[in-house]
Structures are given as C-alpha cells and as structure tokens.
C-alpha cells in the first residue's frame, strides 16, 4: 500500500479532554495509524516530544498550563515536525497567529473524522514525500523525487510545471483542486490568465500518466472547477 509508510508515523496528540483524546485516537487508529501518543498538558507534551520523537503533532489551543501556540514554539525549538491545530476558538486572529508561527494546518471543532484524516494525511504526504518516491496511479507510477513517470517500464521525465501541478494534485489526492489553486502552484501568487496554459499542461501530463489520455481515469476534469487526481490504494 502506498500510504502504509505514512501510517507508521508517530503522532503526538495534545488535548486537555480525555474523551476528545480517545475519540481522535480512535479515528486515527481506525484509519490505520498505529503510533499515537497522547498528552493532556504542555509539560507532558514537552516531555513526550523529546522522549517519543513524534513526526506530527496535533495540538489543542487551550491547555490547562498554557496555550497551544506557546507549546508549538517550544516544540519547534528542539525538533522540526509538522503541527496541526485543533481548537474550539474559531477566531481569525488565532488562525493567523497559528500560521504565523509555522503551523501546518488548523481545524476548528467540531469536525468530521473524514476532514481530520484528510488533513493529517495531506500534511504527512507533504512533509514526508521524499520517503516514498513512488506514487501508484491506475496506469503508472510517479517518482516525485526524480520528477519521472514510470509507465510500462519506461521512464518519462516531467517538466517543472508538470511536476508542480502533479504535486499539488497529489497532496489533495481524491479531492478536487480548483483551477486557481493549480495555477497558483505552478505560476505563483498572481495566477490570472494561465487557465489555457494549465489545460495544455494537463493534456501533456495525461499523455504521460494515463493509459488512454482521451479517456482519463487518474486525472479527472471537473468542468469549470478544477481537477482531481485518483491515487491507487485510497
């Protein structure tokens, strides 16, 4: 399975409510995650961080002995792993503060298990993509590290733009990514007027990854909205 290596990641879960910890644990373990450690206070979390070497932290903002933002600062001082915030405070300021300090994502309670899993998987995929160079699609495999598509024993190189577009789609595998987000991924912050170029790139990507480029099964068009990448094993 392509994502098995991600399921082996050590996850640190910090929240002051035992029931919430139990629930998140159950959601994660049901999805296949096996290495989960939980902490209820900042102190416990800091101790666990140095002993357990987590590869992803899911932090609550409100903790009995401090707030999650301070905790993240402390954790990041000693090691560098991605952080996802879970909070009951939906205020924008918190959001900006969280991202300003280097949080990787942010979720406001309450949330569906699906949303949580999507974000956890997306963060892990983004942060540890180098560890699993091969992504299996229906008709080929993609080696993101070497920017190559392996189809029928043949290695087809990806251009820089094709690589950018595919990376963005892969991070959101199974979900629609808007035209605008893809243009931004490929052409940067002011991505207006690249829609036609994007279509051309998508056509060339399909020629490389699809068995039958005129009937795509891996890179699906959502008319007017964007594209979706279907990854095997999802």
């Amino acid at each position, binding site marked *: 399975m392509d994502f098995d290596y991600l399921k082996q990641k050590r996850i640190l879960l910090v929240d002051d409510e035992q029931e919430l910890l139990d629930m998140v644990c159950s*959601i994660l373990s049901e999805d296949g995650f096996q290495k989960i450690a939980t902490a209820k206070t900042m102190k416990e979390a800091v101790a666990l961080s140095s002993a357990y070497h987590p590869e992803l932290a899911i932090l609550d903002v409100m903790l009995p002995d401090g707030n999650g933002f301070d905790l993240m600062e402390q954790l990041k001082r000693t090691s560098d792993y991605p952080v996802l915030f879970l909070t009951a405070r939906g205020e924008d300021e918190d959001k900006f503060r969280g991202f300003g300090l280097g949080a990787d994502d942010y979720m406001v309670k309450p949330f*569906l298990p*699906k949303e949580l899993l999507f974000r956890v998987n997306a963060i892990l995929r983004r942060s540890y993509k180098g560890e699993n160079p091969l992504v299996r699609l229906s008709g080929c495999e993609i080696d993101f590290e070497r920017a190559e598509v392996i189809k029928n024993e043949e290695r087809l190189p990806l251009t820089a733009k094709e690589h950018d577009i595919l990376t963005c789609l892969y991070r959101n595998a199974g979900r629609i990514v808007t035209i605008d987000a893809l243009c931004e991924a490929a052409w940067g912050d002011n991505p207006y007027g690249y829609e036609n170029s994007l279509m051309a790139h998508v056509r060339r990507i399909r020629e490389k990854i699809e068995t039958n480029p005129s009937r795509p099964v891996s890179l699906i068009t959502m008319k007017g*909205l964007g594209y979706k990448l279907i990854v095997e094993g999802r």
Partner: protein
Amino acid sequence: MKSVPRLIRRFIGILLLSFLLLAALNITLLFLYTRSQLPNSYPWKTAEEVAGQLSQDENGYHLSEKMTRELEDFDVWAILIDNDTMQVAWQTNDLPESVPMSYSISDIAGLTRGYIDGYPTFTGEIENGLVVLGYPKDGFWKHMWPSWDYKLIADLPKTVLSILVINVTLVFLIYVVANSKLLRSVKPIVNGIQALPSEDAVYVPERGLLCELAASINKTSEILQHQKRQLCKKENARANWIAGVSHDIRTPLSMVMGYAGQLREDAGLNDAQRQKAAVIVKQSERMRNLINDLNLTSKLEYNMQPIRSRTINLVALVRQVVVDFLNLDVDGRHPIEWETSENLTACPVNADENLLKRAVGNLIQNCINHNGQGCTIHVGVTKDEDKCTVSVIDDGLGATDEQIKRLNNAPHYMDCDETTAEQRHGLGLLLVRQIAAAHGGTVTIGHGIRGGFSVTFTLPMADG
C-alpha cells in the same frame, strides 16, 4: 451658527425701538408738565392790566378795588414812576421799604430786565409813566440776557439732529462693546451644543460670562459618553457571551460528530444503523453551522468583526467554496453545477476573503438544508460594468411569493426587539446580508428559474 446673527439683529432692533420710544415718552412728559405751569407771560399782562386800570384825578392815582385785592392776594406790590420826575408817583400800601423812590434811566432798563432788591419786576406803560409790579422774591426767575446768537437759532434743527445721531451711535457702540464680550462667550457654547448630537465627546472651556452653561454642556456630553460606553460594554458582553457559549458547545459537539461520523462509515453496522448515524452527523453539522453563524453574526452586528479587505478574485473564491462542498458531499444528493462563463476568469472585488467564503458557503448550505430530498445547485458568477454578482439557484422546493416577500422585508429576530410571529428565523441568510452590507453589496432573494430558490449576491467591482 445662523441663529446668532439673527439674535444680534433682533437685539439691535429692540434697542433702537426702545430708544425712540423713550425719546417720545420724555417729550410727551415734558409737554404735559410744562402745560400745567403758569404761563410765563402772565405777570407782564397783569402789569399792563394794572396800568390800564390806574386812573388819575385831582388827588392822584387810584387803582380799582378789584385789582388792588388781586394784587394783595398774590402778595404783589406796585409803583408808578412818573415820566417827568422819575419819582414814584403812586404806590401800593404794602411796598417794601427797600424799594427806592426815585429812578434813573439805567435803573429803569435794569428793573425791566431784572429785579429791584431781589423782587422780580414787570412793567406796564401808561400815558405819562411806567407801572412796575414787584412779585415775591421766590415768585419768578428772570432771564437777564434774553438774546441768542442768530446762527444758533437758525442751525437748531441741524444741531438737534446731529446730537441725536451722536447719542444713537454712542449707545450702539456701548452695546457692541458690551455684547462682543457676550458673543465671544456664546460662540463656544453654540458650537458645543451643535456638536452634542454627533457622538463625539464635547468640551467647552468653562470661563467667561456663560461658564455655567459651558459646564452644563460638558456635563451633558459626559453623560452621553458614559451612556455610549455603557451601551458598548453591554454589546461587547453580549457578543462575548455568545462567543463563550459557542466555544463551550464546540468540544462536546466534536465528540458527537466524531463518533457519529465513525459509526456512519462503520462496515460492521447494518444500513439502518449507519443511516441513523448519518442523521446524527447531519444534525450536528447543522448545530455547528448555527454556532458559527451565531458567533459571526453577533460580531458583525456589534462591529466587533474586523473586515480585512484586499483585492481578491471572486471567481476563484466562489470556485473554491463550490469545490469544498463537492469534496465533502458524502451522499451526492446535492450536486453543484458550475455555471460561469469560461471566458470570465477574474472578477476583482475588495473584500475579506474569509467572510465572503462564509457568505457563499451559507447560500449553498441553505439550498442543502431546505432540500433534504436532494436538489441540483447552480452556482455562477457574472460580471457587469461595475459590479460582480454571485448567483446560487436550486431546483428544489423553493418558496411562495409570500415567504420570499417576508425574507426580503421582515426583520430578523436578531434585529428585532418585538416578539411578533412575523420574525424570520435561520441565521444563514441574515449573515449573508450582514456580510454583503459590510462590503457595500446587496442580496436579492427570489424564485429560481428552475422552480427552486434563488439568491443573488452583488458586490461592487474593485478598481483596476
């Protein structure tokens, strides 16, 4: 400040009027007073009467009994000076001793103009002499030099007029000087009162004639500011209370939603059980949306939500919201059709990205909430000359004309302090309206062309 010049004009008018009235009154009083006085010419006439009634015979001169009595009544003495001898030729019995008995011509001239020994004297002519009446010393005052400069008399009207003008000017000057001080102190008071209706704090320096008024204005302003602060505090408390409650609900709701979500996907359960879990998920999602809306709507209501506007592409934003819904739509009962022209790739508006996403998201959520049986939602963006419009139209149950009229006009229960049955419920559309208003846009609710519900959200286009 228009009232102040009007006030000054009125004051001057009143002043001039009272000036004229006073002059008229004085003249009238003088006239009435002098009329009651004895005429000045009457002793002269009496003297002439005496002269006329003085008769001469061989024994000398005689005055009639009646005239004699009359003179005695008034305590008047009389003498007759003979023309030839310049001696007193006749006299009344009560002649004071100090009156001389012989006169020179210069004496005559003197007594005609003035007095004999302090007695005011009046003369009357007879054929060969001069009758002189002497009145009591305090009876008359005689003007010794009854002559005037001719020019003075000739110029009298002019002189009187110019004196009058000088008087009026003087009074006016006194008024202006006295009042300019008053006006100087009135001006800040007037400014202060005019500034009171604006909600800012007002301070008028408490000095000058009207310092008490200034103090009252300052006090009033202080009270207004205090009330404003109190109101603000109350509103903050309310918004904070709502924020607190919604925060406290989020954690328990996470548990409900999380476990129900797991059960919904649990392959070990049968369809009916999973269906029940799906209902719990759906209802907890509704509660989540309600909490989010309640929190934001109360913040917008009390201006506690910062609007972080920047130029954003409305097409991209709406597209992202649609995709977010599609990525989350589990049962596929609410497909969304993207109906935006392919040529329209950018539609710049100045807006807060998160708020706008909430607004469009609420419109789509609204279609889903009201069409449990499923419906297709058509979302589109159009660009006109100076505005961008997002339309969200479904082919679901729709609403009656009456309901739509009420949605467009009736107040929401959040905005309304009356408890009438006519109020609207549901925060979704209220929030959309608030967000539109915060961005200078409008919301129109109507019938969809496919029989369902239609909402259009229009924003002014950003420059450039």
